[in-house]
């Protein structure tokens, strides 16, 4: 099953777009829109599982096992497994498939005026590989010994010696599932990097690409360049566990720090792989709902490329106190703190986009703004961790947990919801309910902050993370009510997703039918039917200008699709 290498586009589309059977249309589809929905379905499934792991972890922290309300079955090993799986699921099985698999696949071909991705069959293989990796990870919950329990970071030797946790088979399956997930997104990345280069519609120069396409491609490149060493590392980890090699075992000449370097060399860029598409979604939505061009398009592109490049040389800020040579700390601290500069510029550009706009707060815009506002707190708290000295105190405390939830949650869930509410009409041909959407936003925003502000507090006090019972320490007993508060907020936050679930499902059958362009947006996906037919465009659109021509002076309307010419307003007064 080779890729569609070099075959002419017409021959691919002819065989590709004849009327398919049920199986070819919904299960074994090569249509990027269907593949996107498959990724979306898997991401939504895993977000439920991931939310449940969060529930279990937070319940234990508020009401420990053995107390009146505690989970009687939650042993420390099981707790460690829940913590491990929560992180693994959210990063690899929710954020990646949602932001890259779903939005990347759905939007890229449409936004560049293409009929599909460059390699549709490779695309199908990628989502099926992801499905397989999901099965493997799901299985790991049910095997004897339970799921992996060494943290999503799987530090060796805790993870490399089977005797050290209850999860023997579980850890092996974890490695296999993550490896398959990597393979899936490498395959997807080949599409994401090739398609915008080779299949752009006439007139779509690189500087006329919508920012989401830039950000998805940049994220894919970052993933592709950084995951390799960890693939090597995972092979070594598996060999340590199964064959008795000693890559990470000092007794056999190995070094646990090797794993840390290999993991974080990927692990840090990975969080930008997740953050970039989230930002891309916010950058698409802000201009539409402010009716203003995005401020500083080229600057934003240069900034994100700079940030992506820098992200490859910051990884050891996760390892300041790891026992590595202390002289490495200062250089990595410098690069880490510098990476705030391009991000700051992007954030300022987003704020500047709001200035002088005509802002309307529909649900997508609310989520985009809420995501931006929350991410800023995550970003500034990162400075405390990027400085090697304050990191001595804050490393491995709840401060870190709060920091990364204030970055990862906004780019995954706020941006993800923003994207879902925004592109739902295009994906499913129906409008979602706006009232339920606003309710969902306010509950999520308020409760999200209610969960994680208390965690900053307990973290500043020194509470360590991944600890079954923080109240076992005298220092943290007085803070138990913060843990309870965070847990109550978590339960309410999880419950607040019900309006979204109801809205998402019911709108699919009962929502108002969507027109082509309900948001009056400029990018090319809004020029075709909702949902688009196979092949997207009857004929390749001809692109005439950039994607953010809103409120052009003298224009008849305040938007201008990328394939539309400028239409002057009627005479008399004009402009």
């Amino acid at each position, binding site marked *: 099953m080779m890729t569609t290498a070099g075959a002419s586009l017409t021959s691919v589309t002819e065989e590709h777009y004849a009327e398919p059977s049920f199986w070819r249309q919904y299960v074994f589809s090569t249509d990027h829109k269907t593949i996107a929905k498959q990724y979306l379905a898997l991401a939504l499934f895993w977000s439920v599982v991931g939310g449940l792991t969060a529930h279990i972890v937070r319940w234990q922290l508020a009401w420990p096992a053995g107390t009146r309300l505690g989970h009687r079955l939650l042993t420390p090993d099981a707790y460690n497994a829940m913590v491990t799986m929560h992180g693994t699921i959210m990063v690899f099985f929710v954020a990646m498939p949602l932001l890259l698999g779903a939005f990347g696949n759905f939007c890229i071909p449409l936004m560049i005026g293409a009929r599909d991705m460059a390699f549709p069959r490779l695309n199908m293989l990628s989502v099926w590989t992801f499905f397989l990796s999901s099965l493997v990870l799901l299985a790991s919950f049910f095997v004897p010994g339970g799921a992996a329990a060494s943290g999503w970071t799987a530090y060796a030797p805790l993870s490399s010696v089977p005797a050290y946790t209850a999860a023997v088979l579980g850890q092996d399956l974890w490695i296999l599932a993550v490896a398959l997930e990597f393979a899936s997104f490498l395959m997807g990345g080949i599409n994401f990097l090739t*398609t915008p280069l080779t299949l752009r519609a006439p007139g779509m120069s690189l500087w006329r690409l919508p920012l989401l396409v830039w950000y998805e491609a940049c994220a894919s490149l970052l993933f592709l360049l950084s995951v390799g*060493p960890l693939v090597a590392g995972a092979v070594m980890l598996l060999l340590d566990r199964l064959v008795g090699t000693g890559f990470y075992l000092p007794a056999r000449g190995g070094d646990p720090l090797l794993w840390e370097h290999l993991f974080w060399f990927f692990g840090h860029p990975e969080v930008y792989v997740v953050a970039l598409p989230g930002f891309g979604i916010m950058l698409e939505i802000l201009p539409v709902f402010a009716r203003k061009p995005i401020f500083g398009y080229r600057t934003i592109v240069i900034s994100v490329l700079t940030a992506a490049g820098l992200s490859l040389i910051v990884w050891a800020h996760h390892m300041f106190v790891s026992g590595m040579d202390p002289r490495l700390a200062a250089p990595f601290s410098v690069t880490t703190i510098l990476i705030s500069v391009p991000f700051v510029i992007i954030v300022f550009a987003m704020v500047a986009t709001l200035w002088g706009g005509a802002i309307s707060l529909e649900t997508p815009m609310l989520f985009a703004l809420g995501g931006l506002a929350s991410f800023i707190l995550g970003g500034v708290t990162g400075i405390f961790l990027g400085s090697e000295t304050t990191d001595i105190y804050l490393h491995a405390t709840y401060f870190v947990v709060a920091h990364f939830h204030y970055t990862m949650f906004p780019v995954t869930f706020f941006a993800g919801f923003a994207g879902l509410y925004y592109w739902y009409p295009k994906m499913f041909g129906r409008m979602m309910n706006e009232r339920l959407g606003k309710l969902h936003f306010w509950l999520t925003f308020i409760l999200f902050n209610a969960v994680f502000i208390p965690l900053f507090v307990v973290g500043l006090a020194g509470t360590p993370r991944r600890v079954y019972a923080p109240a076992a320490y005298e220092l943290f007993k007085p803070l138990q009510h913060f843990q309870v508060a965070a847990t109550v907020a978590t339960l309410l936050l999880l419950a607040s997703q019900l309006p979204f679930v109801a809205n998402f499902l019911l709108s699919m059958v009962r929502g108002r039918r969507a027109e082509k362009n309900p948001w009056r947006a400029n990018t090319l996906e809004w020029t075709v039917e909702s949902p688009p037919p196979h092949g997207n465009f009857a004929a390749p659109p001809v692109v005439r*200008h950039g994607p953010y021509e809103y409120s052009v002076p003298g224009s008849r309307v305040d938007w201008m699709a990328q394939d539309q*010419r400028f239409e002057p307003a009627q005479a008399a007064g004009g402009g």
Partner: protein
Amino acid sequence: MDTLATSPSDVAVEPDRIRAIPQGKVGVWWFLASEIMIFGGLIGSFILIRLAHGGWHAEADHVHWRIGALNTLVLLTSSLTMAWACDAVKERDQRALKTFLFLTMLLGLTFLGIKAFEYSWEISDGFTPATNLFFAFYFTLTGLHACHVLGGIVANTLLWLCAVRGRRWPMIQHRVEFAGLYWHFVDIVWIFLFPLVYLS
């Protein structure tokens, strides 16, 4: 700047150079980039750890450099036959294509056969991946490489079958070229491995 184009000739339909490259080639290059990072990570780790442990000269004495050298010759020759296969497909010479693809497969299988013999010799001598860290790296590096050789043999076999059945030329030309890129990459990885593992 490219903000607003209002004139009728505003459509910049530049046939830019990027779009002229067959997209399968772009795809293969991205794939190879990711593979370079995988092997780079493994080889980099090996180099750094080997230096930290003082070179492992005693342990490294137990690999069979003559066999490694033979295998290097085999693989280099297979790259030559692969290059000839690519030439043949450009000239639409079906017979030459079949011959050279077959030779490449054969040489690839020879490489794997020699490797298997080498592994069994080492294991029966008592050197397994668990013996010491040098041999852990040795087996992992050459084993991962061998898996990639196997993948390349499979791809070449499929292409050879296409050639035997006389498939359409434009399609098979590009695919042979991509398989050639991959095969040369696998060869280059070996060229790094051989001195690092066998000759140091």
